[in-house]
């Protein structure tokens, strides 16, 4: 194993290169651009044996990925923000046709006003589309998850597309030391894709037909069921990846949760700052923990309930707004998960960092303390607070 300097985008491109992808179809958009640029270099230099389809839009990018995936090819793409929004209708089709496409997403704000910096609005707009959604905290995780995502998506029990999310600019453009596996190790971990349902002219199959009210609902019900098969397969994939890399992943990562009374729940790059704050506070005797979600869809509801048992309060950090909703999207999910199971747990929803605004250690400490006050005082069970905004 060697350690090389890679940005988050480069880490995803490097992982895809090692995964022997058959078809890449993508369209550039900031802050994802480096992924397709890097991959284009690999293609141009003959470092990969990949058909690169340089499409004219993200809509066509995902359309071509679906077509290629249906032939049994291993398929990769990347996007962000408006690009992901333009793919929206195809996101549902990719998952409904059970295409195990892997997509790197450098999360970015949505217009208007136009903003190219990082937040989770793009992914949150797509959270119900039937994809496996994974958030990485840094370039190392982005690299590791990309490789694991192909194994997970292509597993015959799963056959669902996956997205690997990294915070735009904060991770996509920051250079980090990344430990990369040998090509052979990745090849052994991820053999070429084989799918018994792939298009075969000798065995005609009608793909994507019309299903009227007499059948459509059953299709969707089955799709909901498939989501339940993801966590056990994910566990298996992570275990095997741990063996070859020494890095063990799962649905989420906990810090200081053994004896915590209050915890911060977050996704992406903010987790590093949250852990830093928790470490400092624990040094002062505060019983604080951090839960960083890797797997956002399917949402690991039962496991989170077990993880949060015994806590007085949690602070859920949302890097997106769900307009008109009572809470941010991650917090809504959490409330749904704990409803009736942790009746005494007080929840604070901190909405932060939109359009690339920094979240500081001081701010995180501030919301942690507010969460703690909530636990003690006769406060409402749930509160929403916008952090780091002029209001």
């Amino acid at each position, binding site marked *: 194993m060697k350690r090389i300097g890679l940005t988050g985008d480069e880490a995803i491109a490097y992982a895809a290169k090692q995964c022997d992808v*058959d*078809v890449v*179809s993508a369209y550039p958009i900031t802050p994802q651009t480096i992924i397709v640029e890097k991959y284009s270099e690999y293609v141009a230099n003959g470092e990969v*044996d*990949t*058909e690169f*389809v*340089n*499409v*004219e*839009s993200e*809509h*066509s990018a995902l*359309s*071509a*990925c*679906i*077509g*290629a*995936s*249906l*032939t*049994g*090819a291993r*398929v990769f793409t990347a996007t962000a923000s408006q690009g992901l929004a333009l793919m929206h*209708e*195809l996101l549902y*089709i990719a998952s409904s*046709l059970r295409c195990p496409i892997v997509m790197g997403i450098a999360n970015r704000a949505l217009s208007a006003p136009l903003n190219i910096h990082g937040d989770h609005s793009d992914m949150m707009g797509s959270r119900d589309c039937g994809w496996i959604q994974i958030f990485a905290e840094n370039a190392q995780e982005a690299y590791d998850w990309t490789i694991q995502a192909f194994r997970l998506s292509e597993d015959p029990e799963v056959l669902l597309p996956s997205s690997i999310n990294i915070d735009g600019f904060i991770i996509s453009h920051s250079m980090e030391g990344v430990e990369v596996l040998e090509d052979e190790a990745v090849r052994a971990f991820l053999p*070429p894709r084989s799918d018994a349902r792939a*298009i*075969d*002219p*000798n065995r*005609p*199959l*009608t*793909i*994507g*037909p*019309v*299903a*009227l009210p007499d*059948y459509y609902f059953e299709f969707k019900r089955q799709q909901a069921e498939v989501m339940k098969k993801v966590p056990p397969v994910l566990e298996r994939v992570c275990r095997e990846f741990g063996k070859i890399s020494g890095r063990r992943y799962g649905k989420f990562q906990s810090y200081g949760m053994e004896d915590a009374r209050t915890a911060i729940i977050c996704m992406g790059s903010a987790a590093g700052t949250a852990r830093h704050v928790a470490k400092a506070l624990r040094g002062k005797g505060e019983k604080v923990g951090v839960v960083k979600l890797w797997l956002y869809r399917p949402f690991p509801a039962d496991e989170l309930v077990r993880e949060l048992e015994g806590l007085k309060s949690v602070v859920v950090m949302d890097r997106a707004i769900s307009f008109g909703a009572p809470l941010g999207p991650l917090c809504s999910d959490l409330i749904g998960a704990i409803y009736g199971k942790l009746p005494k747990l007080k929840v604070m929803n901190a909405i932060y960092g939109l359009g690339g605004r920094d979240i500081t250690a001081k701010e995180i400490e501030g919301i942690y303390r507010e969460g703690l006050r909530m636990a003690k005082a006769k406060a409402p069970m749930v509160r929403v607070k916008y952090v780091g905004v002029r209001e």
Partner: protein
Amino acid sequence: MSTLRELTKEELLAPGHRMCAGCPVPTLVRMTLKALRGPTVIVNATGCLEVATSIYPYTAWRLPWVHVAFENAAAVASGIEAGFKALMRKGRWDQKVDVIALGGDGGTFDIGLQALSGALERGHDFLYICYDNEAYMNTGIQRSGSTTFGAATTTSPPGAKIPGKREWKKDLIGIAVAHDIPYAATASVAFWKDCIAKVRKGIEVDGPAVIHAITPCPRGWRHEPSESIKVARLAVQTRFFPLYEVENGKYRITLPVPNPLPVEEFLKTQGRFRHLFKPENRWMIEAIQRWVDKNYERLVKLSQL
């Protein structure tokens, strides 16, 4: 292939689909499928053909068939072509697979034009066939970029102020040819031999090919279901829809019409043009005739270059 007897008897579009009575689109599809040279995948844009041939749990397709969305048949075809190309190069697939994309005029002239342009520019080896019934027939006869000037549709109704569609039909083949593709052609279901030969050519050329086929719609054009082929023939005989092909930029009229019938003969077969025959709207028929004449002259000149 030169006679009907020499055509394969194999029918890859099964009977029992739910296309409307008198719809010539299944006829076009059956002709297309008789021109295949080997393993083929069909990509179908959302539209009449798609919804009426694939109602779960039934399918009329006896070959691999994929429907993804309305506006992206060409992009999906690009991906399928790229997928098989990669798999063949890597030794995981061993037969050349032809890819044919089918879309209506809505999915081709309008919402799907960007995806089509992209696929043509990239040079994928596939055939795109547009069946043109000159409106969004699947959603109930709304005007498209292909609807003829003057035609009545539910979104270009002839009213007291505006007598039908005010804009002219897009030149789809002109757009396709501007991409410098190896083959583009028009076809009519009334001329089976011309049609099948063109489909085969489109499959055989190395690179993208586009066929624009006129397919009268009894529901939307307001003619008898039994007259679809006759109307498709009149479209050619009046020079309203000339049959030609463009091979590597070289135009050729494949079915010259030296003594055309007046365009009126075509228009009067259809209820969608009924209002044009009112005295105050006669000018529109004349305008259509001028458009027909100009277009045919243009094709003659282009084919003499």
